[in-house]
């Protein structure tokens, strides 16, 4: 019995979605739990797993095409089974859509003929597969096998040699390959090609999209941290008693931002088409790294929840990210993002806005800094906060007002009461 594969609903308000990239091809054998395809929501890359073991047939969603949630995009069949008729194979549909008939089979190359067409080259299936995945033109690869057949080792060797002449591994057909040049083995240059993970690829696309569409500007402020440090010192034992976890500076800042943002609705807003979307809730995304992958879990309604709740919530989100058990609902719906690199010793930085949000707050480290006060130079703990804004929604004055309120709240956290 063929099992249908549908475009799942991974977010509460999701009505349509798109297969971002298929990870299997027509006819592939899969086991239940194997990744079939990636979908992208407005916040996260999600891998969709096979609901059953069997053969993938009747792939009926082109990459990137928007489809209603619940659309059948493929079937998992028994080896000798065909999918139900309504899911025609994608190629057939494509031909029909293009008004054409299926292309006639290519005439076979005459035996022994040497052609420059890759299909007529002698190469093993694995070598062809590898060349495709590395974006290598097989015609450039010398074959070491019988009668000049190209084997996978030849492709590997060629990929290594290419590094010395080709400066960059580019993007081809949407597949971005990161190159990491290393000098090993007696100075012989070698490239290590590591495909981006699904999360990295989505993050890359979203960041490019953000920089391309949102005119960024940044405002910075040095803010004295003593009051917040004192508050945290007083609260920490109590919160730790309740939750078992010490509240981080980031959680305090999320709570403060949650308190402030209802009064800065454009900074809490998002650009959607020709209009600005103003959100009733303040949902604070926290930038988190997982083995080189940027993830932004969201603290929902951060302004209405206690520090203890937020502390426990962020700990849960971090653990689920670590365990790769995070649900899309926890990665979506953010209205503002905080990125704190202070713990790495960064003094200040400006971040790229997490689209479609309109601003992101970058937090540097707290440093004992000499400042002038009442005619004296005194040392005060101080941190630099930088707000990157989308100038389409937020102008300099709005950004400045937010920073003024942020300074007030951090230097006098009692205003939160």
């Amino acid at each position, binding site marked *: 019995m063929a099992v249908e594969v549908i475009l799942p609903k991974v977010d509460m308000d999701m009505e349509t979605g798109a297969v971002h990239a298929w990870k299997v091809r027509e006819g592939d054998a899969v086991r239940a739990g194997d990744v079939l395809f990636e979908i992208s929501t407005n916040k996260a890359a999600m891998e969709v797993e096979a609901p059953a073991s069997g053969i993938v047939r009747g792939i009926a969603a082109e990459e990137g095409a928007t489809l209603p949630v619940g659309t059948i995009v493929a079937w998992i069949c028994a080896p000798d089974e065909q999918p139900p008729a309504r899911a025609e194979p994608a190629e057939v549909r494509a031909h029909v859509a293009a008004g054409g008939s299926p292309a006639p089979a290519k005439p076979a190359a005459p035996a022994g003929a040497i052609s420059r067409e890759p299909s007529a080259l002698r190469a093993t299936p*694995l070598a062809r597969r590898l060349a495709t995945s590395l974006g290598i033109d097989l015609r450039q690869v010398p074959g070491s096998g*019988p009668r000049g057949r190209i*084997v996978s080792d030849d492709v590997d060797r060629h990929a290594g040699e290419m590094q010395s002449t080709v400066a960059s591994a580019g993007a081809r057909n949407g597949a971005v390959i990161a190159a990491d040049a290393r000098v090993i083995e007696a100075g012989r240059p070698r490239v290590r090609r590591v495909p981006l993970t699904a999360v990295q690829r989505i993050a890359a696309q979203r960041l490019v999209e953000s920089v391309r569409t949102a005119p960024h500007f940044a405002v910075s402020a040095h803010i004295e941290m003593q009051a917040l440090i004192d508050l945290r010192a007083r609260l920490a034992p109590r919160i730790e008693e309740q939750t078992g976890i010490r509240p981080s500076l980031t959680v305090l800042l999320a709570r403060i931002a949650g308190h402030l943002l209802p009064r800065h609705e454009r900074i809490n807003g998002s650009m959607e088409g020709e209009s600005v979307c103003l959100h009733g809730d303040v949902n604070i995304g926290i930038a988190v790294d997982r083995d080189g992958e940027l993830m932004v879990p969201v603290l929902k309604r951060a302004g209405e929840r206690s520090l203890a709740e937020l502390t426990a919530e962020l700990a849960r989100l971090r653990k689920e990210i670590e365990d790769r058990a995070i649900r899309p609902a926890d990665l979506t719906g953010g209205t503002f993002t905080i990125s704190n690199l202070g713990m790495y010793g960064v003094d200040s930085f400006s971040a790229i806005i997490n689209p479609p949000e309109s601003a992101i707050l970058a937090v540097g480290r707290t440093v004992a800094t000499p400042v002038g006060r009442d005619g004296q130079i005194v040392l005060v703990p101080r941190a630099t906060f930088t707000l990157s804004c989308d100038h389409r929604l937020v102008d300099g004055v709005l950004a400045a007002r937010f920073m003024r309120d942020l300074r007030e709240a951090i230097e006098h956290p009692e205003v939160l009461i």
Partner: protein
Amino acid sequence: MPNEIVAHGAGVRECSYAEAIREALAQAMEADGRVFLFGEDVGVYGGAFGVSGDLFHRFGPERVIDTPISELGLAGAAVGAAITGMRPVLEIQFSDFITLAMEQVVNQAAKIHFMFGGKASVPLVIRLPGGSGTGAAAQHSQSLEAWFAHVPGLKVVQPSTPHDAKGLLLAAIDDPNPVLIFEHKLLYKTKGPVPVEPYRVPIGKAAVRREGTDITVVATSIMALRAEAAAQRLAAEGISAEVIDLRTLRPIDFPTVAESVRKTHRLLTVYEGVKTMGIGAEVSAMIAESEVFDFLDAPIARLGGAEVPLPYNPALEKAAVPQEDDIVAAVRRLVREGEA
């Protein structure tokens, strides 16, 4: 009866392939009154290869039955007994003689369950000593298992170890369908660990005998042993061969083979039956048709029996079927030169 059994851990001891089969028969007959063994010289004489041994004396002439020399008659009796509720185990003295019983095996045993809409089944086991190497010449040395693996409705197994001989025979006796067990005459005296208690080796499941990364060698029956020995020699020259003992020809365990070839990128099949239209062709085609095709980095190669009636001359007889050296050479050629 000489006792060749050696203690070998808790409940497991070393015994020969023939003893393992005898033990399976005895345990099946003890457990189930419907099980009986019959065939030419299986009784008083103890079997042409000594497999049934003392079973005649232990279970009596009603359950270990010497028969006339008439394979078609025996097979017909076996099918009839199976349909009427018995669990017959038929020994065909040399597997070559099954040609005389083709009508009953192929046209009756394999089809009755289907043609009667499932109302009848044929829980029949046929034991078939096959293979060359004993100087028994062209009519007593063949490996005809592929003929039967071609027939829907039959199951075909080929144990290569004492452990699998016992486990597959017990599984075959349990099975409600006709199962043909091709035993290898040269394996009867080989020894290995065998649990004392009854157990089953699942029909349809191959065994990975040795893990490797450079090539998958799929072998059947005694060829699995030769492939293992070859793999050991090849390891010394830096070639890591994975050896899969197919164990069951029908239904064939494709996933185990596919998973291995996906990893090693190369496939050699080794079987004693004549190379053309044999097991190796089937395994090769399954891989070539599957998604594993894209993972092949060399042609698929077959190593099978020569295209001749098996010679009586011992040197020629040996040359007519794959030997350990042939497997070593074929693997080297595939891995080093990329040639089948």
